[in-house]
């Protein structure tokens, strides 16, 4: 029997099992290995991203501080850099960096230097990182929630800061992490000072134009009398001296009025020169000979009558007048301020026109008692520039004198002269020019002084009748005269012509200046209170609370919060923008105060017990008692603008109006003072109160304070590779 050899079908299967197992194991392990490598790689990316994020975050902080510092000083000279590189100016004007569509380009941003962050990054990883920081404005609102428009560049906006940290190109492989951080900060731009020029939209800082601003000036000095007011100088002797400065722009003085009432300046004969140019005679117009004949139709006939038959001596006699040429008419104007003497003497009693007389007497003057007058109470220097200092509502009545003069100094009278000759010679008849000044007979010469004929075509004729200096008194054709003035007065001072013309109507002019009041009171700060648009209520400084940097600080009567915020540190007051405190603030209790920065401190009452000194002479320091008084309890110099005006309540409707300054010691203020009431009767009795206008308050450009909020309103962190 043949044995069938059986082959083992399982021969070598162990190797296959092993191989299969190894393959499975190998796959698992490789997967694990790949996974761990990935984890390690991810950690590396995490590590580099974290480093990049820290660098970008540090860059954000440094960039914020950079912007904060660059906008700290509103008077920074860099603002005026001609190359337009000033960051302060870019932010204020929003030139080239405004991107409301959030489009980021290299040209619509401020490039920010961040040396500290760069240095830190180099410490960590050498010079392998590109770190950039830039900022742009992405939103700006120039009006408040009611739609009231702020002044020029004032407003609230959002500034975007973008910082990026990433590896330089050649290190990207080993340093894959990169980070971009975008942050938004709100910022506010508030006007601290405005350029001193007429402007329809004037900022809330308008009162800083004034060395002394009394909002209720007329009410304060009007008193109970319906006709006559109180003196600025009360019964006891208090004297306030105001030095309005010496530069091109002076600190002004303003006495506020109500509708249809005016405050008048009281002058005596001794002080009438305080009105500059008040007594000066100014040339108005000239007219040539033919026009002169129109005004004085009988002048030519008068000359002819005077000269015909005139014996010239040496047997010469004028037989006829052939022509008169070269004579000229001059119109001159003079305004004379009405003084106490005019009112109290017979001057006005002789006034022909009763209505004009009454108009003068019924004005509300500061003074009724001749023992005191305006300048005894308040002295204003420089007095020769008083018309620049006294503003708007202070008015003065004037007598307006118009002079019409005929200048014959170059007048030539051509006459025919007959010289009697002895017989048998014939008489000589010849034509001859007589130059009236040099060659006319003495009797004529006396009357032909320049001016040869002087007419006062208003009331001065009554007071100065002796100015009729010629015996040639041809009557004036007034109609022609006034037509000529109206037609030819093209010197852009219609008030002068009209003023001259008002003589016809027997009216007086009142304003101290020729132009209308500089303050258009309704536009005082471009804010209207609903249903309450009375001008003196509209004259409220720093009214836009939207622009306050900080509001409701110090809610209790303590200074802790001011100190906690770093606004008040020992004897330093650090201002930036407008800071509003709900309660009272006492300054200088523990020593003199040095003020750093520029801004406004608003409180209920501000009690000053020590010197206030500005660290920087160009800075703007305003202390504003908004719902109380400014109380002075020191004789030391206070370098600040003081304001005491009652403000609106929470609704913005109910305005107080009795903010006062209480002066318990000698006032030595270098700055300005704006109050509802001066309250001078309550001042300490001394003659040495002094206000010196700080010329830092009169800049040549608008001065804005930028306040960038520390708080981040939006943040995006982009980690990219």
């Amino acid at each position, binding site marked *: 029997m043949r044995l069938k050899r059986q082959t083992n079908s399982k021969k070598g299967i162990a*190797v296959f099992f092993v191989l299969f197992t190894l393959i499975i194991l190998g796959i698992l392990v490789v997967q694990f*290995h790949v996974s*761990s490598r990935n984890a390690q790689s991810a*950690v590396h990316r*995490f590590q580099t991203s974290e480093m990049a994020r820290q660098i970008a975050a540090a860059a954000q902080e440094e960039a914020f501080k950079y912007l904060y510092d660059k906008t700290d000083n509103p008077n920074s000279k860099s603002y005026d850099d001609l190359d337009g590189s000033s960051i302060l100016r870019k932010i204020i004007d929003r030139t080239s960096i405004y991107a409301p569509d959030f489009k980021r380009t290299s040209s619509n941003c401020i490039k920010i230097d961040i040396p500290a962050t760069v240095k830190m990054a180099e410490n*960590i990883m050498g010079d392998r990182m590109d770190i950039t920081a830039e900022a742009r404005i992405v939103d700006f609102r120039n009006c408040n929630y009611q739609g009231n428009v702020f002044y020029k560049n004032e407003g609230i906006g959002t500034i975007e800061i973008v910082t990026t940290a990433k590896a330089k190109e050649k290190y990207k492989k080993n340093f894959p992490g990169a980070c971009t951080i975008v942050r938004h900060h709100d910022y506010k731009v508030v006007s601290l000072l405005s350029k001193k020029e007429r402007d329809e939209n004037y900022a809330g800082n308008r009162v800083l134009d004034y060395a002394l601003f009394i909002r209720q000036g007329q009410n304060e000095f009007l008193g109970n009398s319906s006709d006559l007011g109180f003196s600025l100088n009360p019964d006891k002797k208090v004297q306030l001296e105001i030095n309005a400065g010496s530069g091109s722009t002076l600190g002004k003085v303003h006495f506020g009025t109500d509708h249809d009432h005016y405050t008048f300046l009281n002058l005596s004969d001794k002080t009438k020169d305080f009105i500059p140019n008040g007594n000066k005679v100014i040339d108005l117009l000239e007219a040539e000979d033919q026009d002169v004949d129109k005004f004085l139709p009988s002048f030519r006939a008068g000359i002819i009558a005077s000269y015909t038959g005139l014996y010239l001596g040496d047997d010469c006699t004028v037989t006829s007048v052939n022509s008169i040429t070269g004579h000229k008419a001059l119109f001159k104007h003079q305004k004379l301020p009405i003084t106490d003497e005019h009112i109290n003497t017979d001057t006005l009693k002789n006034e022909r026109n009763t209505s004009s007389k009454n108009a003068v007497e019924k004005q509300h003057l500061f003074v009724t008692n001749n023992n005191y007058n305006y300048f005894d109470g308040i002295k204003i220097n420089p007095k020769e520039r008083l018309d620049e200092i006294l503003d708007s509502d202070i008015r003065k009545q004037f007598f307006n004198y118009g002079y019409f003069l005929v200048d014959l100094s170059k007048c030539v009278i051509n006459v025919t002269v007959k010289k009697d000759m002895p017989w048998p010679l014939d008489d000589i008849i010849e034509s001859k020019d007589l130059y009236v000044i040099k060659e006319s007979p003495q009797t004529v010469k006396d009357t032909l002084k320049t001016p040869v004929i002087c007419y006062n075509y208003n009331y001065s004729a009554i007071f100065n009748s002796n100015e009729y200096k010629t015996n040639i008194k041809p009557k004036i054709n007034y109609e022609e005269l006034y037509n000529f003035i109206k037609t030819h007065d093209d010197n852009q001072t219609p008030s002068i012509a009209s003023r001259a013309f008002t003589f016809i109507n027997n009216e007086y002019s009142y304003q101290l200046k020729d132009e209308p009041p500089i303050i258009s009171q309704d536009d005082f700060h471009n804010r209207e209170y609903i249903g309450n648009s009375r001008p003196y209520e509209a004259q409220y400084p720093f009214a836009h609370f939207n622009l306050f*940097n900080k509001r409701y600080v110090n809610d209790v009567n303590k200074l802790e919060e001011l100190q906690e915020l770093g606004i008040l540190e020992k004897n330093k007051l650090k201002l930036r923008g407008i800071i509003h405190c709900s309660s009272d603030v006492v300054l200088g209790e523990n020593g003199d105060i040095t003020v750093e920065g520029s801004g406004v401190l608003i409180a209920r009452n501000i009690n000053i017990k020590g010197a206030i000194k500005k660290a920087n002479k160009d800075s703007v320091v305003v202390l504003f008692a908004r719902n109380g008084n400014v109380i002075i309890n020191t004789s030391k110099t206070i370098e600040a603008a003081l304001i005491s005006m009652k403000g609106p309540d929470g609704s913005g409707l109910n305005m107080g109006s009795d903010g006062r300054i209480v002066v318990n010691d000698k006032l030595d203020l270098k700055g300005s003072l704006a109050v509802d009431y001066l309250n001078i009767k309550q001042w300490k009795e001394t003659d040495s109160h002094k206000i010196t206008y700080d010329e830092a308050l009169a800049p040549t450009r608008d001065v804005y304070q930028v306040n960038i909020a520390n708080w981040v309103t939006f943040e995006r962190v982009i980690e990219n590779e």
Partner: protein
Amino acid sequence: MINKRKAFTLMEIIIAMALMMVVILSIFMLNQTSNRSSMDAYFETLCFSLAREPIEVFRGLGYETVLAISKNHKLCPAPYKIGEFTNITFDPKLALQYPADAESFQRRIDLTPNSSGKYINIKVTVAPRNMSKAEVWFRKESIILESNIVWKPKW
């Protein structure tokens, strides 16, 4: 009766075992490497978190407080110490909790004020403690993370 079924040959088994040993050894080594990498990555992540944490806390304290701390180290808040390595401890009673593995690390915080620039450089170094689990698994000697805390207004 003779069993005609043949068993695996000795040679066959020897070859299979040798092959298996070589491969398993390789796999084991690869696995060990991977495991080490994973643990390293884990500890590095933890390490960075421990380094980042005081930076964020100090940034929150603000420039002026940190400046005061840099001048007087006693003012430093409780879990942190300035200028020296401090062991990170796991204590469930503490308000600030760390993972248990954080105990493997020690941390050092250095503050360098720059008065002219009004910023403070904060440098945090995290390193494994001696004889700790991290010392075994964490390859690097330490992790350093830096940032600057810049002055800001308080309002």
